[in-house]
Protein backbone atom coordinates (compact mmCIF):
# COMPACT_ATOMS: atom_id res chain seq x y z
CA UNK A 1 0.00 0.00 0.00
CA UNK A 2 1.57 3.27 -1.11
CA UNK A 3 -0.22 5.54 1.34
CA UNK A 4 -1.94 4.61 4.58
CA UNK A 5 -3.59 7.35 6.60
CA UNK A 6 -4.95 6.44 10.03
CA UNK A 7 -6.81 8.69 12.45
CA UNK A 8 -5.36 11.81 10.86
CA UNK A 9 -6.40 14.91 12.75
CA UNK A 10 -5.43 18.53 12.20
CA UNK A 11 -6.07 21.18 14.83
CA UNK A 12 -5.66 24.85 13.97
CA UNK A 13 -4.79 27.39 16.62
CA UNK A 14 -7.15 30.35 16.41
CA UNK A 15 -7.41 33.35 18.73
CA UNK A 16 -10.44 31.70 20.28
CA UNK A 17 -8.80 28.37 20.96
CA UNK A 18 -8.02 25.29 18.92
CA UNK A 19 -10.28 24.18 16.10
CA UNK A 20 -10.32 20.70 14.70
CA UNK A 21 -10.49 20.92 10.91
CA UNK A 22 -9.67 17.30 10.09
CA UNK A 23 -11.28 14.85 12.49
CA UNK A 24 -9.59 11.47 12.69
CA UNK A 25 -9.85 10.49 9.05
CA UNK A 26 -8.51 7.21 7.72
CA UNK A 27 -8.01 6.18 4.11
CA UNK A 28 -5.48 4.48 1.92
CA UNK A 29 -4.18 4.68 -1.60
CA UNK A 30 -2.40 2.07 -3.66
CA UNK A 31 0.16 2.46 -6.42
CA UNK A 32 -1.37 3.84 -9.57
CA UNK A 33 -4.74 4.34 -7.91
CA UNK A 34 -6.75 7.50 -8.11
CA UNK A 35 -8.63 8.68 -5.04
CA UNK A 36 -11.01 11.58 -5.09
CA UNK A 37 -11.67 13.77 -2.05
CA UNK A 38 -14.92 15.67 -2.40
CA UNK A 39 -16.63 18.14 -0.10
CA UNK A 40 -17.78 21.73 0.30
CA UNK A 41 -15.40 24.55 1.22
CA UNK A 42 -14.32 24.16 4.78
CA UNK A 43 -14.76 20.41 4.74
CA UNK A 44 -11.09 19.90 5.52
CA UNK A 45 -10.13 18.41 2.18
CA UNK A 46 -7.40 20.94 1.41
CA UNK A 47 -6.03 20.72 4.93
CA UNK A 48 -5.84 16.94 4.55
CA UNK A 49 -3.81 17.39 1.38
CA UNK A 50 -1.49 19.88 3.08
CA UNK A 51 -1.06 17.55 6.03
CA UNK A 52 0.17 14.82 3.71
CA UNK A 53 2.82 17.23 2.40
CA UNK A 54 3.72 18.50 5.83
CA UNK A 55 2.74 21.99 4.71
CA UNK A 56 0.04 22.82 7.23
CA UNK A 57 0.14 26.44 8.43
CA UNK A 58 2.21 27.52 11.42
CA UNK A 59 0.53 26.66 14.66
CA UNK A 60 -1.36 23.71 13.24
CA UNK A 61 -1.08 20.45 15.11
CA UNK A 62 -1.14 17.25 13.11
CA UNK A 63 -1.77 13.95 14.86
CA UNK A 64 -2.43 10.39 13.83
CA UNK A 65 -0.47 8.42 11.29
CA UNK A 66 0.51 8.95 7.68
CA UNK A 67 2.51 6.07 6.28
CA UNK A 68 3.99 6.66 2.84
CA UNK A 69 5.99 3.87 1.23
CA UNK A 70 6.02 2.26 4.66
CA UNK A 71 7.50 5.34 6.32
CA UNK A 72 5.77 7.37 9.01
CA UNK A 73 5.56 11.01 7.91
CA UNK A 74 4.12 12.62 11.04
CA UNK A 75 6.99 13.67 13.25
CA UNK A 76 9.47 13.29 10.40
CA UNK A 77 12.20 15.92 10.42
CA UNK A 78 11.78 18.91 8.17
CA UNK A 79 14.91 17.98 6.19
CA UNK A 80 13.56 14.51 5.48
CA UNK A 81 10.19 15.95 4.42
CA UNK A 82 11.98 18.38 2.08
CA UNK A 83 13.62 15.46 0.38
CA UNK A 84 10.27 13.79 -0.17
CA UNK A 85 8.46 16.88 -1.43
CA UNK A 86 8.75 17.36 -5.13
CA UNK A 87 10.54 14.04 -5.45
CA UNK A 88 8.33 11.20 -4.17
CA UNK A 89 5.23 13.26 -3.43
CA UNK A 90 4.27 16.26 -5.53
CA UNK A 91 1.42 18.73 -5.34
CA UNK A 92 -0.50 20.78 -7.87
CA UNK A 93 -2.39 23.81 -6.66
CA UNK A 94 -5.60 25.53 -7.57
CA UNK A 95 -4.62 28.98 -8.77
CA UNK A 96 -2.13 28.75 -11.62
CA UNK A 97 -2.22 32.54 -11.88
CA UNK A 98 -0.56 33.04 -8.51
CA UNK A 99 1.12 29.71 -7.88
CA UNK A 100 4.13 30.48 -10.04
CA UNK A 101 6.84 32.95 -9.02
CA UNK A 102 6.37 35.97 -11.30
CA UNK A 103 10.07 36.80 -11.31
CA UNK A 104 11.49 33.44 -12.43
CA UNK A 105 11.27 32.03 -15.93
CA UNK A 106 8.92 29.10 -16.32
CA UNK A 107 11.68 26.80 -17.48
CA UNK A 108 13.75 27.56 -14.39
CA UNK A 109 10.80 26.84 -12.10
CA UNK A 110 10.09 23.51 -13.80
CA UNK A 111 13.79 22.70 -13.54
CA UNK A 112 14.05 23.53 -9.84
CA UNK A 113 12.96 20.12 -8.45
CA UNK A 114 15.39 18.40 -10.83
CA UNK A 115 18.26 20.48 -9.52
CA UNK A 116 17.20 19.94 -5.92
CA UNK A 117 16.52 16.23 -5.98
CA UNK A 118 18.46 14.81 -8.91
CA UNK A 119 21.55 16.98 -8.58
CA UNK A 120 21.38 18.07 -12.19
CA UNK A 121 23.22 21.17 -13.27
CA UNK A 122 21.08 24.18 -14.06
CA UNK A 123 21.72 23.75 -17.77
CA UNK A 124 20.88 20.04 -17.90
CA UNK A 125 17.83 20.61 -15.75
CA UNK A 126 16.60 23.30 -18.10
CA UNK A 127 16.98 20.93 -21.02
CA UNK A 128 14.91 18.33 -19.16
CA UNK A 129 12.39 21.05 -18.33
CA UNK A 130 11.73 21.64 -22.02
CA UNK A 131 11.13 17.90 -22.44
CA UNK A 132 8.70 17.95 -19.54
CA UNK A 133 6.86 20.94 -20.98
CA UNK A 134 6.51 19.04 -24.19
CA UNK A 135 5.22 16.02 -22.33
CA UNK A 136 2.41 18.10 -20.85
CA UNK A 137 1.42 19.05 -24.39
CA UNK A 138 2.50 22.66 -24.33
CA UNK A 139 2.86 23.96 -27.85
CA UNK A 140 6.27 25.58 -28.36
CA UNK A 141 7.84 24.23 -25.18
CA UNK A 142 11.13 26.13 -25.73
CA UNK A 143 9.30 29.43 -25.93
CA UNK A 144 7.28 28.58 -22.83
CA UNK A 145 10.43 27.67 -20.92
CA UNK A 146 12.02 31.02 -21.78
CA UNK A 147 8.88 32.96 -20.85
CA UNK A 148 7.81 34.44 -17.59
CA UNK A 149 4.54 33.25 -16.03
CA UNK A 150 2.60 36.39 -16.89
CA UNK A 151 3.07 35.67 -20.57
CA UNK A 152 1.24 32.32 -20.38
CA UNK A 153 -2.48 31.66 -20.23
CA UNK A 154 -4.14 29.99 -17.27
CA UNK A 155 -4.25 26.62 -18.97
CA UNK A 156 -0.62 26.89 -20.04
CA UNK A 157 0.44 27.78 -16.53
CA UNK A 158 -1.39 24.81 -15.08
CA UNK A 159 0.34 22.55 -17.59
CA UNK A 160 3.64 24.06 -16.47
CA UNK A 161 2.68 23.32 -12.85
CA UNK A 162 2.01 19.72 -13.81
CA UNK A 163 5.35 19.55 -15.59
CA UNK A 164 6.94 20.87 -12.41
CA UNK A 165 5.20 18.14 -10.42
CA UNK A 166 6.06 15.14 -12.59
CA UNK A 167 9.70 16.09 -13.13
CA UNK A 168 11.11 13.62 -10.62
CA UNK A 169 8.53 10.92 -11.39
CA UNK A 170 6.80 11.04 -8.02
CA UNK A 171 4.86 8.05 -6.74
CA UNK A 172 2.02 10.23 -5.53
CA UNK A 173 0.59 13.44 -6.91
CA UNK A 174 -1.84 15.49 -4.86
CA UNK A 175 -3.99 17.74 -6.99
CA UNK A 176 -5.91 20.38 -5.02
CA UNK A 177 -8.72 21.68 -7.23
CA UNK A 178 -6.41 21.68 -10.25
CA UNK A 179 -9.07 22.83 -12.67
CA UNK A 180 -11.40 24.98 -10.61
CA UNK A 181 -9.81 28.23 -11.75
CA UNK A 182 -9.82 27.28 -15.42
CA UNK A 183 -12.34 27.56 -18.23
CA UNK A 184 -14.55 24.51 -18.72
CA UNK A 185 -12.99 23.48 -22.02
CA UNK A 186 -9.51 23.80 -20.58
CA UNK A 187 -10.59 21.83 -17.53
CA UNK A 188 -11.42 18.77 -19.54
CA UNK A 189 -8.10 18.84 -21.36
CA UNK A 190 -6.07 19.24 -18.18
CA UNK A 191 -7.87 16.34 -16.54
CA UNK A 192 -7.34 14.17 -19.59
CA UNK A 193 -3.67 15.09 -19.46
CA UNK A 194 -3.43 14.04 -15.84
CA UNK A 195 -5.15 10.74 -16.63
CA UNK A 196 -2.75 10.12 -19.47
CA UNK A 197 0.31 10.82 -17.34
CA UNK A 198 -1.04 8.55 -14.65
CA UNK A 199 -1.43 5.57 -16.92
CA UNK A 200 1.97 6.22 -18.50
CA UNK A 201 3.87 6.14 -15.26
CA UNK A 202 1.67 4.42 -12.69
CA UNK A 203 1.49 7.45 -10.42
CA UNK A 204 -1.12 7.50 -7.70
CA UNK A 205 -3.35 10.56 -7.63
CA UNK A 206 -5.18 12.18 -4.77
CA UNK A 207 -7.67 14.49 -6.47
CA UNK A 208 -9.30 17.06 -4.23
CA UNK A 209 -12.36 18.78 -5.65
CA UNK A 210 -15.78 20.13 -4.80
CA UNK A 211 -16.98 19.14 -8.25
CA UNK A 212 -18.64 15.71 -8.30
CA UNK A 213 -18.44 15.52 -12.08
CA UNK A 214 -14.68 15.87 -12.00
CA UNK A 215 -14.38 13.13 -9.38
CA UNK A 216 -16.81 10.88 -11.22
CA UNK A 217 -14.93 11.08 -14.45
CA UNK A 218 -11.39 10.68 -13.23
CA UNK A 219 -11.19 8.70 -10.00
CA UNK A 220 -11.30 5.04 -9.01
CA UNK A 221 -12.42 5.64 -5.46
CA UNK A 222 -13.83 8.58 -3.57
CA UNK A 223 -14.11 9.84 -0.01
CA UNK A 224 -16.76 12.37 0.88
CA UNK A 225 -15.78 14.83 3.59
CA UNK A 226 -17.89 17.12 5.70
CA UNK A 227 -16.66 19.29 8.57
CA UNK A 228 -13.42 17.34 8.72
CA UNK A 229 -15.10 13.95 8.89
CA UNK A 230 -15.22 11.28 6.19
CA UNK A 231 -18.90 10.66 5.74
CA UNK A 232 -18.66 8.04 3.05
CA UNK A 233 -15.97 6.27 1.06
CA UNK A 234 -15.84 3.64 -1.61
CA UNK A 235 -15.58 2.94 -5.34
CA UNK A 236 -16.70 5.92 -7.36
CA UNK A 237 -19.56 4.29 -9.30
CA UNK A 238 -20.98 2.73 -6.17
CA UNK A 239 -20.83 5.84 -3.99
CA UNK A 240 -22.17 8.17 -6.63
CA UNK A 241 -24.91 5.90 -7.90
CA UNK A 242 -25.94 4.22 -4.67
CA UNK A 243 -24.92 6.58 -1.91
CA UNK A 244 -25.44 5.31 1.62
CA UNK A 245 -24.96 8.62 3.36
CA UNK A 246 -27.50 11.46 3.51
CA UNK A 247 -24.77 14.05 2.90
CA UNK A 248 -23.56 12.36 -0.26
CA UNK A 249 -27.15 12.08 -1.39
CA UNK A 250 -27.75 15.74 -0.72
CA UNK A 251 -24.64 16.68 -2.67
CA UNK A 252 -25.76 14.61 -5.62
CA UNK A 253 -29.23 16.07 -5.58
CA UNK A 254 -27.95 19.61 -5.32
CA UNK A 255 -26.38 19.45 -8.75
CA UNK A 256 -28.30 21.22 -11.50
CA UNK A 257 -29.83 18.55 -13.71
CA UNK A 258 -29.95 19.09 -17.50
CA UNK A 259 -33.33 18.02 -18.75
CA UNK A 260 -35.12 19.03 -15.59
CA UNK A 261 -38.30 21.02 -16.19
CA UNK A 262 -37.80 24.75 -16.60
CA UNK A 263 -38.42 26.80 -13.54
CA UNK A 264 -37.81 23.82 -11.28
CA UNK A 265 -36.05 24.98 -8.13
CA UNK A 266 -32.50 23.79 -7.56
CA UNK A 267 -32.26 21.56 -4.55
CA UNK A 268 -30.03 22.99 -1.86
CA UNK A 269 -28.91 21.71 1.49
CA UNK A 270 -30.64 23.81 4.13
CA UNK A 271 -28.53 25.46 6.80
CA UNK A 272 -24.80 26.01 6.76
CA UNK A 273 -21.69 23.98 7.66
CA UNK A 274 -20.80 24.14 11.37
CA UNK A 275 -19.24 27.45 12.41
CA UNK A 276 -15.63 27.68 13.45
CA UNK A 277 -15.66 26.89 17.11
CA UNK A 278 -18.49 24.43 17.28
CA UNK A 279 -17.40 20.90 17.78
CA UNK A 280 -20.44 18.74 18.04
CA UNK A 281 -20.44 15.50 19.91
CA UNK A 282 -22.60 13.66 17.48
CA UNK A 283 -22.74 13.74 13.71
CA UNK A 284 -21.59 17.04 12.18
CA UNK A 285 -24.39 16.90 9.63
CA UNK A 286 -27.12 16.66 12.27
CA UNK A 287 -29.77 19.29 11.83
CA UNK A 288 -29.10 19.84 8.14
CA UNK A 289 -29.77 16.21 7.43
CA UNK A 290 -33.24 15.12 6.36
CA UNK A 291 -32.91 11.92 8.35
CA UNK A 292 -31.84 13.48 11.64
CA UNK A 293 -32.99 11.79 14.80
CA UNK A 294 -32.05 12.26 18.45
CA UNK A 295 -29.12 9.85 18.31
CA UNK A 296 -27.49 11.96 15.63
CA UNK A 297 -26.97 14.80 18.08
CA UNK A 298 -25.62 12.79 20.97
CA UNK A 299 -23.61 9.88 19.59
CA UNK A 300 -20.93 9.90 16.87
CA UNK A 301 -22.27 7.88 13.96
CA UNK A 302 -20.74 4.43 13.42
CA UNK A 303 -19.03 3.22 10.29
CA UNK A 304 -21.33 0.92 8.39
CA UNK A 305 -19.92 -1.31 5.66
CA UNK A 306 -21.71 -2.12 2.41
CA UNK A 307 -19.26 -4.46 0.75
CA UNK A 308 -16.47 -3.73 -1.76
CA UNK A 309 -14.82 -1.31 0.65
CA UNK A 310 -17.90 0.91 0.64
CA UNK A 311 -18.28 2.50 4.07
CA UNK A 312 -20.76 5.07 5.30
CA UNK A 313 -20.65 6.90 8.59
CA UNK A 314 -24.27 7.30 9.54
CA UNK A 315 -26.74 6.13 12.17
CA UNK A 316 -29.32 5.42 9.51
CA UNK A 317 -27.05 4.40 6.66
CA UNK A 318 -29.27 1.52 5.67
CA UNK A 319 -32.23 3.81 5.10
CA UNK A 320 -30.50 6.18 2.73
CA UNK A 321 -31.65 6.20 -0.83
CA UNK A 322 -35.02 4.59 -0.26
CA UNK A 323 -37.93 6.71 -1.16
CA UNK A 324 -35.92 8.79 -3.62
Amino acid sequence: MLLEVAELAVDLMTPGGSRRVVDRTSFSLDEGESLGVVGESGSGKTMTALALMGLTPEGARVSGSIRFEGRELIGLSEEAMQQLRGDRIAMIFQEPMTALNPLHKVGAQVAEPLVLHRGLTERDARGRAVDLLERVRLTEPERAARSYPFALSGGERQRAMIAMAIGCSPRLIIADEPTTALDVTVQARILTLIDGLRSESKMAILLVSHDLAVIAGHCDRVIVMYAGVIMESGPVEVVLHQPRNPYTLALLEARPRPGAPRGARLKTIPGAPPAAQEHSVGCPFAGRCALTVDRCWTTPPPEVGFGANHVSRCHRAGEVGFGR
Partner: protein
Amino acid sequence: MLLYLGQRVALFVATLLFASLVVFAVMQILPGDAAQTMLGPTATPEAVAALSHKLGLDLPAPIRYAHWIWGALHGDLGLSYAYGSPIGPLIASSLAVSAPLALMAMALAAIIGLVAGVYAADRRGRAGDAMVMGFSQIGIAVPNFWLAILLVLVFAVTLRLVPAGGFPGWHDPARAIAALILPAIALGVVQAAIVTRVTRSAVIEALNEDFMRTARAKGVSRRAALWRHALPNALTPILTIMGLQFANLIAGAIVVENVFVLPGLGRLLLQSISNRDTLVVENGVMLLAVIVIGLNFVVDVACAAIDPRLRASAA
Protein backbone atom coordinates in the same frame (compact mmCIF):
# COMPACT_ATOMS: atom_id res chain seq x y z
CA MET B 1 13.49 46.56 -21.83
CA LEU B 2 14.72 49.14 -24.31
CA LEU B 3 11.33 50.71 -24.66
CA TYR B 4 10.99 50.97 -20.92
CA LEU B 5 14.45 52.44 -20.63
CA GLY B 6 13.69 54.98 -23.32
CA GLN B 7 10.50 56.08 -21.60
CA ARG B 8 12.30 56.40 -18.33
CA VAL B 9 15.13 58.47 -19.77
CA ALA B 10 12.66 60.84 -21.36
CA LEU B 11 10.83 61.22 -18.07
CA PHE B 12 14.15 61.75 -16.30
CA VAL B 13 15.18 64.60 -18.58
CA ALA B 14 11.76 66.19 -18.41
CA THR B 15 11.76 66.09 -14.62
CA LEU B 16 15.24 67.61 -14.50
CA LEU B 17 14.15 70.48 -16.70
CA PHE B 18 11.10 71.05 -14.58
CA ALA B 19 13.23 70.95 -11.43
CA SER B 20 15.64 73.50 -12.85
CA LEU B 21 12.75 75.83 -13.64
CA VAL B 22 11.37 75.53 -10.13
CA VAL B 23 14.75 76.05 -8.48
CA PHE B 24 15.39 79.08 -10.63
CA ALA B 25 11.96 80.50 -9.97
CA VAL B 26 12.25 80.03 -6.22
CA MET B 27 15.64 81.67 -6.12
CA GLN B 28 14.23 84.70 -7.96
CA ILE B 29 11.39 85.03 -5.53
CA LEU B 30 13.49 84.99 -2.41
CA PRO B 31 14.37 88.47 -1.29
CA GLY B 32 17.93 89.63 -1.10
CA ASP B 33 19.82 91.46 -3.77
CA ALA B 34 23.06 89.63 -4.51
CA ALA B 35 24.91 92.72 -5.64
CA GLN B 36 23.80 94.59 -2.55
CA THR B 37 24.92 91.75 -0.33
CA MET B 38 28.31 91.53 -1.94
CA LEU B 39 29.04 95.22 -1.61
CA GLY B 40 27.57 95.60 1.84
CA PRO B 41 24.98 98.04 3.25
CA THR B 42 27.17 101.07 2.80
CA ALA B 43 27.50 100.76 -0.98
CA THR B 44 26.10 103.49 -3.16
CA PRO B 45 23.16 102.70 -5.44
CA GLU B 46 25.36 103.43 -8.46
CA ALA B 47 27.94 100.90 -7.36
CA VAL B 48 25.25 98.34 -6.78
CA ALA B 49 23.77 99.01 -10.20
CA ALA B 50 27.18 98.74 -11.83
CA LEU B 51 27.91 95.43 -10.19
CA SER B 52 24.45 94.18 -11.06
CA HIS B 53 25.08 95.00 -14.66
CA LYS B 54 28.51 93.39 -14.60
CA LEU B 55 27.12 90.18 -13.12
CA GLY B 56 24.30 90.20 -15.63
CA LEU B 57 21.73 90.44 -12.85
CA ASP B 58 19.68 93.07 -14.65
CA LEU B 59 18.95 90.87 -17.63
CA PRO B 60 15.44 89.46 -17.96
CA ALA B 61 14.76 86.21 -16.13
CA PRO B 62 14.43 83.87 -19.12
CA ILE B 63 17.82 85.00 -20.42
CA ARG B 64 19.48 84.50 -17.08
CA TYR B 65 17.88 81.06 -16.89
CA ALA B 66 19.15 80.15 -20.33
CA HIS B 67 22.64 81.39 -19.43
CA TRP B 68 22.59 79.29 -16.36
CA ILE B 69 21.53 76.06 -18.07
CA TRP B 70 23.90 76.62 -20.95
CA GLY B 71 26.78 77.30 -18.61
CA ALA B 72 25.96 74.31 -16.43
CA LEU B 73 26.03 71.98 -19.41
CA HIS B 74 29.51 73.26 -20.19
CA GLY B 75 30.73 72.98 -16.64
CA ASP B 76 30.72 76.71 -16.07
CA LEU B 77 28.56 77.48 -13.11
CA GLY B 78 29.56 81.06 -12.56
CA LEU B 79 31.28 82.74 -9.68
CA SER B 80 30.47 82.59 -6.02
CA TYR B 81 29.60 86.00 -4.64
CA ALA B 82 30.99 85.28 -1.24
CA TYR B 83 34.27 83.67 -2.29
CA GLY B 84 34.70 85.21 -5.70
CA SER B 85 35.90 81.87 -7.02
CA PRO B 86 34.35 79.55 -9.58
CA ILE B 87 31.43 77.65 -8.22
CA GLY B 88 32.15 74.42 -10.11
CA PRO B 89 35.30 73.45 -8.19
CA LEU B 90 33.74 74.70 -4.96
CA ILE B 91 30.82 72.34 -5.27
CA ALA B 92 32.98 69.53 -6.59
CA SER B 93 35.27 69.56 -3.60
CA SER B 94 32.33 69.63 -1.22
CA LEU B 95 30.83 66.71 -3.09
CA ALA B 96 34.08 64.80 -2.60
CA VAL B 97 33.14 64.71 1.07
CA SER B 98 29.37 64.37 0.92
CA ALA B 99 29.07 61.75 -1.78
CA PRO B 100 31.22 59.12 -0.06
CA LEU B 101 29.48 59.95 3.22
CA ALA B 102 26.04 59.42 1.71
CA LEU B 103 27.11 56.21 0.01
CA MET B 104 28.61 54.82 3.19
CA ALA B 105 25.47 55.69 5.12
CA MET B 106 23.19 54.16 2.50
CA ALA B 107 25.29 51.01 2.27
CA LEU B 108 25.16 50.65 6.03
CA ALA B 109 21.43 51.21 6.03
CA ALA B 110 20.86 48.73 3.23
CA ILE B 111 22.89 45.93 4.77
CA ILE B 112 21.52 46.31 8.28
CA GLY B 113 18.00 47.01 7.07
CA LEU B 114 17.73 44.06 4.68
CA VAL B 115 19.20 41.54 7.08
CA ALA B 116 17.18 42.75 10.07
CA GLY B 117 14.02 43.06 8.00
CA VAL B 118 14.29 39.54 6.59
CA TYR B 119 15.07 38.20 10.04
CA ALA B 120 12.04 39.94 11.54
CA ALA B 121 9.76 38.73 8.75
CA ASP B 122 10.99 35.18 9.19
CA ARG B 123 10.33 35.28 12.93
CA ARG B 124 7.15 37.23 12.65
CA GLY B 125 5.12 37.41 15.83
CA ARG B 126 7.92 35.94 17.91
CA ALA B 127 10.52 37.45 20.22
CA GLY B 128 13.05 38.10 17.44
CA ASP B 129 10.52 40.13 15.50
CA ALA B 130 9.49 42.19 18.52
CA MET B 131 13.12 42.91 19.32
CA VAL B 132 13.92 44.09 15.81
CA MET B 133 10.79 46.23 15.66
CA GLY B 134 11.60 47.72 19.03
CA PHE B 135 15.07 48.70 17.89
CA SER B 136 13.72 50.15 14.69
CA GLN B 137 11.25 52.30 16.61
CA ILE B 138 14.09 53.68 18.67
CA GLY B 139 16.19 54.19 15.56
CA ILE B 140 13.51 56.30 13.97
CA ALA B 141 12.91 58.35 17.07
CA VAL B 142 16.50 59.33 17.71
CA PRO B 143 17.50 62.62 16.04
CA ASN B 144 20.52 61.96 13.85
CA PHE B 145 22.43 64.97 15.10
CA TRP B 146 21.95 63.81 18.67
CA LEU B 147 23.23 60.38 17.76
CA ALA B 148 26.16 62.13 16.11
CA ILE B 149 26.94 64.03 19.30
CA LEU B 150 26.69 60.86 21.36
CA LEU B 151 28.97 59.02 18.97
CA VAL B 152 31.50 61.81 19.23
CA LEU B 153 31.23 61.61 23.00
CA VAL B 154 31.84 57.90 23.16
CA PHE B 155 34.25 57.18 20.35
CA ALA B 156 36.14 60.40 19.96
CA VAL B 157 36.18 62.05 23.35
CA THR B 158 36.21 59.04 25.64
CA LEU B 159 37.81 56.30 23.59
CA ARG B 160 39.78 58.49 21.22
CA LEU B 161 39.40 55.99 18.42
CA VAL B 162 38.45 58.35 15.65
CA PRO B 163 38.68 62.11 15.20
CA ALA B 164 35.88 64.22 16.59
CA GLY B 165 35.50 66.23 13.46
CA GLY B 166 37.10 67.78 10.45
CA PHE B 167 38.18 66.18 7.22
CA PRO B 168 41.85 65.62 6.37
CA GLY B 169 41.37 65.34 2.62
CA TRP B 170 41.60 62.36 0.31
CA HIS B 171 45.36 62.34 -0.07
CA ASP B 172 45.32 60.12 3.02
CA PRO B 173 42.48 57.69 2.25
CA ALA B 174 42.68 55.80 5.52
CA ARG B 175 42.29 58.89 7.65
CA ALA B 176 39.65 60.25 5.32
CA ILE B 177 37.50 57.18 5.73
CA ALA B 178 38.11 57.23 9.48
CA ALA B 179 36.74 60.75 9.56
CA LEU B 180 33.59 59.63 7.76
CA ILE B 181 32.79 56.57 9.84
CA LEU B 182 30.98 58.22 12.73
CA PRO B 183 29.01 60.59 10.49
CA ALA B 184 28.01 57.66 8.27
CA ILE B 185 26.78 55.73 11.30
CA ALA B 186 24.82 58.72 12.58
CA LEU B 187 23.16 59.13 9.20
CA GLY B 188 22.77 55.45 8.46
CA VAL B 189 21.06 54.34 11.66
CA VAL B 190 17.82 56.18 11.00
CA GLN B 191 17.76 54.96 7.42
CA ALA B 192 18.52 51.44 8.59
CA ALA B 193 15.50 51.55 10.87
CA ILE B 194 13.27 52.63 8.02
CA VAL B 195 14.68 50.05 5.61
CA THR B 196 14.16 47.39 8.27
CA ARG B 197 10.46 48.18 8.58
CA VAL B 198 9.89 48.34 4.84
CA THR B 199 11.80 45.13 4.24
CA ARG B 200 9.90 43.34 6.96
CA SER B 201 6.48 44.24 5.64
CA ALA B 202 7.44 43.61 2.01
CA VAL B 203 8.89 40.19 2.83
CA ILE B 204 5.86 39.26 4.93
CA GLU B 205 3.62 40.10 2.00
CA ALA B 206 5.77 38.01 -0.32
CA LEU B 207 5.74 35.11 2.15
CA ASN B 208 1.97 35.06 2.02
CA GLU B 209 1.88 34.63 -1.72
CA ASP B 210 0.85 31.35 -3.31
CA PHE B 211 4.12 30.74 -5.09
CA MET B 212 5.81 30.32 -1.71
CA ARG B 213 3.65 27.27 -1.06
CA THR B 214 4.51 25.93 -4.50
CA ALA B 215 8.19 26.33 -3.77
CA ARG B 216 7.91 24.47 -0.45
CA ALA B 217 5.89 21.75 -2.19
CA LYS B 218 8.82 21.22 -4.54
CA GLY B 219 11.08 20.52 -1.61
CA VAL B 220 12.71 23.94 -1.33
CA SER B 221 13.79 24.57 2.26
CA ARG B 222 12.30 27.44 4.26
CA ARG B 223 15.57 29.30 4.22
CA ALA B 224 16.10 28.91 0.47
CA ALA B 225 12.48 29.84 -0.23
CA LEU B 226 12.89 32.99 1.84
CA TRP B 227 16.00 34.24 0.06
CA ARG B 228 15.43 32.89 -3.47
CA HIS B 229 11.69 33.26 -3.84
CA ALA B 230 10.37 35.77 -1.32
CA LEU B 231 13.09 38.41 -1.20
CA PRO B 232 13.33 39.09 -4.95
CA ASN B 233 9.60 39.73 -4.96
CA ALA B 234 9.97 42.07 -2.01
CA LEU B 235 12.82 44.04 -3.56
CA THR B 236 10.75 46.33 -5.75
CA PRO B 237 8.94 48.15 -2.94
CA ILE B 238 12.10 48.12 -0.81
CA LEU B 239 14.24 49.71 -3.50
CA THR B 240 11.56 52.25 -4.30
CA ILE B 241 11.34 53.40 -0.70
CA MET B 242 15.11 53.48 -0.36
CA GLY B 243 15.24 55.75 -3.37
CA LEU B 244 12.63 58.06 -1.89
CA GLN B 245 14.45 58.06 1.42
CA PHE B 246 17.64 59.28 -0.18
CA ALA B 247 16.32 62.82 -0.17
CA ASN B 248 15.90 62.58 3.59
CA LEU B 249 19.38 61.18 3.87
CA ILE B 250 20.70 64.28 2.19
CA ALA B 251 18.72 66.51 4.50
CA GLY B 252 20.13 64.67 7.48
CA ALA B 253 23.62 65.09 6.05
CA ILE B 254 23.25 68.85 6.24
CA VAL B 255 22.92 68.73 9.99
CA VAL B 256 25.38 65.90 10.58
CA GLU B 257 28.08 67.67 8.57
CA ASN B 258 27.58 70.54 10.95
CA VAL B 259 28.18 68.37 14.00
CA PHE B 260 31.38 66.90 12.59
CA VAL B 261 32.54 70.08 10.88
CA LEU B 262 32.82 68.32 7.54
CA PRO B 263 33.39 70.59 4.50
CA GLY B 264 30.63 68.91 2.58
CA LEU B 265 27.80 70.07 0.37
CA GLY B 266 25.44 70.50 3.29
CA ARG B 267 27.75 72.84 5.10
CA LEU B 268 28.46 74.75 1.90
CA LEU B 269 24.74 75.24 1.32
CA LEU B 270 24.15 76.35 4.87
CA GLN B 271 26.88 78.94 4.71
CA SER B 272 25.86 80.11 1.27
CA ILE B 273 22.28 80.57 2.33
CA SER B 274 23.25 82.77 5.21
CA ASN B 275 25.72 84.61 2.96
CA ARG B 276 23.01 85.23 0.42
CA ASP B 277 25.35 83.59 -2.09
CA THR B 278 22.48 82.95 -4.45
CA LEU B 279 24.30 81.31 -7.32
CA VAL B 280 25.96 78.77 -5.06
CA VAL B 281 22.65 77.94 -3.46
CA GLU B 282 20.97 77.68 -6.84
CA ASN B 283 23.56 75.32 -8.23
CA GLY B 284 23.86 73.39 -5.01
CA VAL B 285 20.14 72.79 -4.72
CA MET B 286 19.94 71.93 -8.39
CA LEU B 287 22.73 69.41 -7.93
CA LEU B 288 20.85 67.83 -5.06
CA ALA B 289 17.76 67.64 -7.22
CA VAL B 290 19.77 66.01 -10.00
CA ILE B 291 21.15 63.46 -7.58
CA VAL B 292 17.77 62.65 -6.08
CA ILE B 293 15.99 62.45 -9.42
CA GLY B 294 18.88 60.52 -10.92
CA LEU B 295 18.88 58.04 -8.09
CA ASN B 296 15.18 57.42 -8.43
CA PHE B 297 15.73 56.89 -12.12
CA VAL B 298 18.35 54.25 -11.32
CA VAL B 299 15.93 52.64 -8.87
CA ASP B 300 13.23 52.50 -11.55
CA VAL B 301 15.59 50.80 -13.97
CA ALA B 302 16.77 48.37 -11.30
CA CYS B 303 13.18 47.42 -10.46
CA ALA B 304 12.50 46.79 -14.13
CA ALA B 305 15.58 44.59 -14.30
CA ILE B 306 14.19 42.52 -11.44
CA ASP B 307 10.54 42.38 -12.39
CA PRO B 308 9.73 41.32 -15.95
CA ARG B 309 6.16 42.55 -15.65
CA LEU B 310 7.40 46.15 -15.38
CA ARG B 311 9.39 45.78 -18.58
CA ALA B 312 6.37 44.43 -20.40
CA SER B 313 4.04 47.20 -19.24
CA ALA B 314 5.99 49.76 -21.25
CA ALA B 315 4.86 48.23 -24.53
